[in-house]
């Protein structure tokens, strides 16, 4: 009996092989015409205002904020999946517990909303 995950691995291997092959073959099949300007970073005439980190630039805070919020909510959702699968077995008790579990998160969400953490200017 085959483990149900084996096909996943096979698929992964095939896709990875394809991807790696493409990446590897790309420089070989194409022409090479050296030009110094080609190797520079892309610009379109205006200095972009946020510099890349390497050049001493910063990433806007909002991205971090989004990342953090995502982590919190994602973890919350992860907890909801097992509950959803077992909702019938857990019954009313489970519902109450899940509501108690959700309450602080909703609270935090309201707080975040109100304090402008969800606003992108």
């Amino acid at each position, binding site marked *: 009996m085959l483990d149900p995950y084996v096909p996943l691995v096979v698929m992964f291997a095939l896709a990875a092989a394809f991807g790696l092959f493409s990446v590897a073959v790309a420089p070989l099949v194409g022409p090479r015409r050296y030009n110094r300007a080609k190797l520079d970073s892309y610009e379109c005439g205006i200095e972009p205002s946020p510099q890349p980190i390497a050049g001493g630039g910063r990433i806007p*805070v909002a991205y*971090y904020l989004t*990342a*953090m919020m995502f*982590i*919190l909510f*994602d*973890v919350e959702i*992860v*907890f909801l999946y097992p509950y959803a699968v077992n909702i019938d077995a857990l019954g009313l008790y489970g519902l109450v517990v899940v509501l108690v579990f959700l309450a602080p998160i909703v609270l935090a969400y309201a707080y975040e909303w109100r304090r402008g953490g969800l606003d992108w200017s």
Partner: protein
Amino acid sequence: MSPTAYLLLSALLFAIGAVGVLVRRNAIIVFMCVELMLNAVNLTLVTFSRINGSLDGQIMAFFVIVVAAAEVVVGLSIIMAIFRTRRTTSVDDANLLKY
């Protein structure tokens, strides 16, 4: 594969994380090492769960994930705050507090 191998792997990961915390000087990397340690623990928990034949270990891993997430959030925000104030994340540069 014998479960011992998993335990060894997780111990190794934990050790790598611990050494990283002690050796590296960049706050973010130190922080990532801590996360590595936490996930090594997850691996241990799941392995033991398998060995013991109970699901408790996996449930505990869930708890660890939550805690790790909370730590990530708080840690990142603190590191970000200090980065915004002094534009570096190196632990070495944080040197106002001395023995």
